[in-house]
């Protein structure tokens, strides 16, 4: 019991020391020749404009929901479809019920007008 805790303690200490060491070493051995471009926030990329504290549209959740319907569904459907001929009737019906529930979500999105690209 105690040795197990000891291992956890060791890992804790190591976990904290290792990154610090890595940073230290690179700070010690790396050549330092700064210039304005290197010092910029993004060496390649667009400079930020304005503040980071901005409001953004919470309505993006609709895309998350649509994503669930169209994408996550396939994760469950691939194994189901591949094993379809070996499955008992109960499992086949279960799969169809699952598709129907997701379809209900799609119908909901459609009737609420969320499929309009505007």
């Amino acid at each position: 019991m105690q040795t197990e805790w000891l291992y956890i303690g060791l890992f804790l200490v190591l976990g904290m020391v290792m990154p610090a060491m890595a940073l230290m070493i690179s700070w010690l051995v790396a050549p330092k020749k700064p210039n304005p471009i290197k010092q910029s926030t993004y060496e390649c990329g667009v400079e930020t404009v304005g503040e980071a504290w901005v409001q953004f549209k919470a309505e993006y959740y609709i895309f998350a929901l649509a994503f669930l319907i169209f994408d996550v569904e396939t994760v469950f459907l691939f194994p189901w479809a591949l094993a379809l001929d070996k499955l008992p009737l109960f499992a086949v019906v279960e799969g169809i019920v699952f598709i129907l529930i997701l379809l209900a979500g799609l119908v909901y999105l459609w009737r609420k007008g969320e499929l309009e690209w505007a």
Partner: protein
Amino acid sequence: MAQLDFYTLLPTVVLMAWASGLLIADLFIPRDRKAWTAGLAALGLALALGLTLAQIGRTGTGFAGMVTLDPFAVLANSLLLVSGLLAVGLSFGYLRRRDIDRGEYYSLTLFSVAGMMLMTQAADLIVVFLALEMFSLPLYVLAAFARPQPDSEEAGLKYFLLGAFSAGFLIYGIALVYGATQTTALAGVVTAVATGTASLPLLAAGAGLILVGLGFKVAAVPFHMWTPDVYQGAPTSVTAFMAAGAKIAGFAALMRVFVQAFPVLGEKLTPILWTLAALTMFLGNLVAIAQSNIKRMLAYSSIAHAGYILMALTAYANPQMRQMAVSAALFYLLAYALTNFGAWGVVAALEKQNGGGLELNDYAGLGRKSPALAAAMTIFMLSFTGVPPTLGLIGKIYLFRVTVEAGFIGLAVIGVLTSLVSAYYYLRVVVVMYMREGEPEASMDGWHKAVIALSAALTVLLSLAPAALFSLVSGATLLF
């Protein structure tokens, strides 16, 4: 047997399917015909109620011991379905008046009722957690249903954040119980304790955390912080449903989990439950006195009533008292639910479209302006206080009797004293209604009136013949 599995959960399954169907059907119902949605929702609840009543006398377990069907579950489920019906009756006119008559309201209510019904039947801690989430998630949305009104949005967000927080306690408690006993089945916990393989301190810690998680749902002090804000901010019809439904489901789970899984911890938990009950009664009743907003006052009153029911639960560890404690708690939940819908119904009727009309002073002159409504409110206030001839009195007598017989005389004394205190703020409403001048404006549709009238009539009539109810609740045993 797959068929029997579904039979144990048939009303819940039917209600879930109905709610899903309703969600889709509602999309094809135009905004000015939402009465159809409400009617269909009521039909689904009535159908589930019929199926539940058909389960009377049947017992069994299903889905590999995950759910159970016993007289307790049947009674609690019937109570929940009636609550759902009353809630739908209150909602339609109210939502239209507040201009928030969106059809999803009814689907969400149905989903929530289905989750609560699963809760009363849960025979495994994982199912308890699942059911808790299933009935809470729709409630979070319903609390925020009057969006974009900031009060309602605040209520929804607060309820959600604190609800998620408390669910963390519950799931951690379940994890500890699993750690102690290698099982999450309620019956399995008892077996593990009996064979001596369980680690009792760990089990006690788990049970304590489960108590915290469920104590949050039933609004027991000190886990009640969310209650006044959420009850005040949520649309009144939602508050009515939330106050009754979440309490029934929460206490049903508390009773089943503690009576069935943790009888061995009785000695350890009794002082904790004693303290929780006493604190809840004290704080709920005392803080309610200081409220001038009727919704906040009723919110604190609902906290206080959770304390009374916890009083019965304190006796759970005593094997002779167990059944009586469960019966008394169920009886009180029934009395509370009926009174609750009536009282919140009156509040909803007096609420103005702009969200005003909720201060105590707005009730001045109601006795003259609409005598029937004032009389109904008087009945509900008397029932909350526990004054004859109301169901609240019978429920309180039953609770106090159980508490005294179980030997917690101090707790019973606290209960009686805090009831006396509560008379002050309940009767203040009556005084304001009858003895002050004012021009209150009540508006409600026929269904709304029917719910208030039915609650008032049942609160009085059932109290005159409580024998039938007594035999009903004493038959509601926890099996398996």
